[in-house]
């Protein structure tokens, strides 16, 4: 009975994978832009509600039982590995492919359900488990649901004030502030290799030094990066990412969980292997 149910689920997964591959060929990349705020929030709320129903039916529904099974663990991590290998082999990898979006949604769904079930036991909160799983949900989820709200613009800046930036696809976008190259410092070593790049940028009259690895945070959701610096001009990249702090929180939780994992090592307990980590 259980085997038949697993076969049915495996067929469903295969059908979804084929459908996603067909969508990639027929419709091109996943339409990320239509999920901009507030559509992404509404969709996420709907998805979480659906997961809540699945969680409640974990003892009765075959789909819910599958999501908590060892097969789902295999599928989740195999999907991570497969997505990595496929994108790692591509010359211009696109994480907007339908099949990648479907894989990440499945992994996130599985993670949420497993975390809901395992974050605490009768003995109390399982801190290591919760930090690792909730951290991954936040880091992965913020990247996934926040992707439509992420904006990446490039702008060429010289001695004259400029407010005309371009999206990565080349569409012009007028900024609500102006940028000016006030000063710059390029240092090369004896072999002519760059050793230090720094541009002093005027942003609506105030000066800020920007160099590689040291962007300027203009607002809580926007940072300005130095991409290229030449004689009397520079290329800046403006990244607006409102979900970045959720990602950051997830990454910090994951690091804390990984440290606990190293210190604590393997822990035996319970019959369910998915809850051990």
């Amino acid at each position: 009975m259980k085997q038949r149910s697993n076969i049915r689920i495996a067929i469903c997964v295969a059908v979804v994978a084929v459908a996603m591959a067909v969508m990639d060929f027929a419709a091109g990349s996943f339409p990320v832009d239509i999920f901009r705020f507030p559509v992404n929030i509404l969709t996420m709320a709907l998805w979480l509600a659906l997961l809540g129903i699945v969680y409640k039916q974990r003892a009765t529904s075959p789909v819910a039982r599958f999501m908590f099974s060892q097969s789902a663990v295999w599928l989740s991590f195999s999907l991570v590995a497969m997505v990595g290998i496929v994108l790692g082999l591509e010359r211009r990898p696109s994480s907007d492919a339908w099949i990648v979006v479907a894989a990440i949604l499945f992994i996130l769904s599985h993670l949420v359900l497993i975390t809901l079930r395992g974050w605490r036991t009768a003995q109390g909160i399982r801190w290591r488990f919760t930090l690792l799983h909730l951290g991954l949900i936040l880091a992965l989820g913020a990247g996934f649901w926040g992707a439509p709200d992420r904006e990446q613009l490039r702008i060429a800046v010289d001695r004259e004030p400029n407010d005309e930036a371009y999206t990565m696809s080349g569409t012009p976008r007028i900024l609500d502030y102006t940028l000016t190259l006030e000063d710059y410092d390029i240092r090369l070593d004896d072999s002519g290799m760059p050793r230090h790049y720094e541009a002093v940028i005027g942003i609506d009259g105030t000066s800020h030094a920007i160099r590689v690895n040291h962007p300027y945070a203009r607002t809580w959701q926007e940072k300005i990066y130095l991409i290229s610096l030449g004689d009397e001009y520079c290329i800046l990249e403006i990244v607006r990412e409102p979900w970045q702090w959720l990602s950051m929180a997830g990454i910090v939780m994951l690091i804390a969980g990984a440290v606990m994992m190293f210190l604590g090592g393997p822990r035996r307990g319970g019959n369910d292997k998915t809850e051990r980590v």
Partner: protein
Amino acid sequence: MMLGWNIFPIVAAIVAVLAVAGAVVALVRKERSGLAMGMMCAAIVAMLAFIITLWLTLQRPPLRTMGETRLWYSFFLLVAGLFTYARWRYRWIMSFSTLLAGVFILINILKPEIHDQGLMPALQSVWFVPHVSVYMFSYALLGCATLLSVVALVSRRSDLNGAIERLLYGGIAFLSIGMLTGSLWAKEAWGAYWSWDAKEAWAAATWGLYLLALHVAPATGKRYDKAYYVVIVLGFLALQMCWYGVNYLPSAAESVHTYNQ
């Protein structure tokens, strides 16, 4: 040529003599040998002294080029082999870790690659040292876990499971920290925590395979589980792709991680 790198063949010979002697003593003695551990410690100290000398000579952390990462990998392999021997008393583990470290040392003698003083602006970050050194340490732990898995697979043994799982936990913990510090660095350098660059994609594949191994580890700890050992070996192959194999793929042409070739 830098002074530090000039003396590497001499240091390598000293390290090889000490490590091989330690490994042989460990192999022939039935009990855990203090002499074997002492000689391995001396080999590790010699290697560390060379790394510090190189660091001072280059005036930057020697973590940039492939040759430099191989240096750290050889060092951490010896450390991981000694740790595994001291903790679980497998007499043969130091022979394997010494052999593997020896291969990477030999490659560095035959093909030292670039060892100049420069550190390009992209690598001038507080994340540089923790990111790369933590990764190299995790590679060494996972290398030892892979050696044990291959032995378990070939000889159909299950008594190595405890050591494999311990090494796996340590290795994956450090692998995760390496990857996460890398993503924090990427956000400061390129504006995105994760961009599915070829190297990042292979890092995700490696991570996925090792996490799979961690989650399907034999629950009893004593059961022979072929799939478990195979996944660990596959994880190690993906790790080799992530570390240097990716440089030989067409996708490397578009990669932003091109300063380590």
